[in-house]
């Protein structure tokens, strides 16, 4: 409940103070909305290709104008969120196995041991709701495991 409240507060703050807000202050929900992560996850939609070009490029304006400023969507947390979104299917298997290039990268990025991620991820999978969760929700839950 506390998390939900925090998230709502952060979201409200975001809408008012976006330019001043640092990446570290944002919840997954904020990053998701501001950075077009939804489009990125469902990357078989045509819009997503364009959006992902705009959002996740590295500071250059690849195809269209860069609607997201560096302050908004280039921060470390946004980078982690985008990485999880794109590679969730691979991460799921590698976390289960306890090894692999993707999970090692995630561990390095978040400064969290693979064994700890694995333990917390096991709790998530053990919950009955796991198989009914949407991809977005799964991504969010994993993001919360590594970011919190």
């Amino acid at each position, binding site marked *: 409940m506390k998390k939900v409240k925090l998230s709502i507060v952060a979201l409200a703050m975001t809408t008012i103070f976006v330019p001043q807000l640092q990446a570290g202050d944002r919840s997954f929900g904020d990053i998701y909305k501001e950075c077009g992560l939804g489009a990125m996850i469902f990357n078989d939609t045509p819009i997503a290709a364009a959006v992902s070009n705009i959002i*996740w490029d590295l500071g*250059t304006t690849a*195809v269209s104008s860069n609607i997201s400023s560096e302050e908004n969507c280039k921060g470390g947390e946004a980078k982690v969120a985008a990485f999880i979104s794109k*590679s969730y299917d691979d991460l799921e298997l590698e*976390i289960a196995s306890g090894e692999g290039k993707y999970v090692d990268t995630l561990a390095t990025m978040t400064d969290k041991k693979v064994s700890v991620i694995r333990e917390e991820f096991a709790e998530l999978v053990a919950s009955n709701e796991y198989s009914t969760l949407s991809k977005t929700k799964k991504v969010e839950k994993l993001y919360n495991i590594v970011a919190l």
Partner: protein
Amino acid sequence: MKTLILYLLLLTTSLCADFWKESDIERVAKEPTWLNLLHYDSSGSQSAIHDKRFFLDSKGQRDAKRELLATLKAYGEPFNDKERDEHAQCRFPARYLWLSTQFTLPNYNELNPACDKLLKWKLLKGTQSISVVFVSGYLGNPASAFGHSFIKVNQSNNEEDNLFDTTLSYGALLPPKYNMPEYIFNGLTGGYEAAYSDKYYYNQDITYSNQEFRDMWEYRLKLSDAKRKLFLFHAWELMGKKNQYFFLNRNCGYKVSEFLSLLYEKPLIDSAYVWYSPIETFYKLKEMDEKGAGEIIDKVIYIPSKQQIIYAQYRMLTTLEKKMVSEMIEKKLNQIPIEYQDVNKSLQAHVLDFLLAYRKYSFEKSKIKIDKDIKAFNRSLLLNRLKLPASRGQKGKPKIKEPITENNAPRYFGMSFLTQESDDALALHFAPFAIEKVGYNNFSGDELVVLDTTVKMGREKVSLNKFDLIRIQRLKTKQIPYDEESSLSWNLHIGTQENENRDYFIDGGLGYAWELTNHMKFYTMMNLSLHSDEKKYRYMPNIGLYGDFHHLRVDLKAGYENELMKENPESIFVLNGQYRMHKHLSLFLQYDNIEMEYLSLGLKWFY
């Protein structure tokens, strides 16, 4: 006051004009590096980039000298406090860097502190090396059948930690909605714009390796610090600038070569009037490397597709593990069978690791919709795996495939002695793109050949003996016994052949193939064909044997051909073989008795 300003302006202009000698301007405007920086074509008449933002002079796309003058002038202009990043020094740092070696630029500062965005650009900070990556052909998309290439800017030298390296990839900018005929038409006729875009490497790894199952080869380049800097500055200039896209000769491969040409004294592109395939970049780099005593390529890294990784993982399983996997698949179990519950935990872990990876691969390959039952099953499997200890690097590594540039080059020219129904002649052979089933390559009996042409020079006339518009073969063999992926092999052959009359035909076949040993495949096919000569509709059941004995590759085929609804079958026998004598030269033999006896024995030069 106005007069004073005008006077100062005139004075500045005349000073600028005097600052650079006209003869130097003339010389530099024709320098290959300047033309490369502007992406002018080989004739030097115009730039391939039609984005106005790429030029400082309104006629800069067609006049390299005017663009040079405008650039030099713009570098000397003061910074506007509100739009500092829009200053020419910030927008065109590669031109600035190179021009500083040709002229004395006033107050030259390679990276002006006013260029905020450029200074923050990640690539300038931690780049260790630069690579070019070749992605093998993908028959799921016509534009990808001949492979793809992109540039990889490595922030890490560790191959196991490279997911956040940066890739620069050139591609058509497709509209939100399009259909395949439209896509092909616009791709061929220049109906699309194209641009470079930058992405983290994991995006390419997931798409090409994990979803499309394409092998990749990374060619890491040897570059001095100065060249690396020039390259990165130029990448900054190019990002997002629009070009006209032509699938055949202004594609990703051409643009990668064009970009790399900036780094070398000689152009990477020999000719691209009609056709340029992505693989050509790599053969040219290899050729330059050999001539330059290894100064071009640092190393070649094979990046196996997820499919190859899963095959290797399966090969690593012990007999008992394979038995457990087999039973779990057969009985649709999501946990280790009761009779094996007591076996070693790490062994159980191997089994579940493989099953999870295999199921993901299998769903990805078959593109089936994941319903709630599948989701629930996957979750149970995942949970059971998470209850077991983590693995410790025992998944097996795929066999390393040799670099693509060790294979036959994609074009060939050949000469042969040809006999057709006792009519002897010399023949010339040519194909602009030929990865042949009996060629020296990694294709294991598959092939993709276009515009393969044979001209027969008889005593009385010269004639077009054979012309294959396209020839494709895909021999799919099961590497995992219960692989549910469609294992249908297939071939397609469209062309014309000179028999008693000229025959135009379309021939397609479906069948199955099996790997007998590491060197041999057996296949069986049913071919149906449509012809322009007397027997219009034909079918041809056939069996074949493909052998790969390193330098010698052979394909034998036997069967019978019959006209539909008629009973007059004729037995057929086809033999194709090639022996690689030298990296550019192969001896070849072609024999068949379809319609009339045909034998061709000669040499092919690959280049």
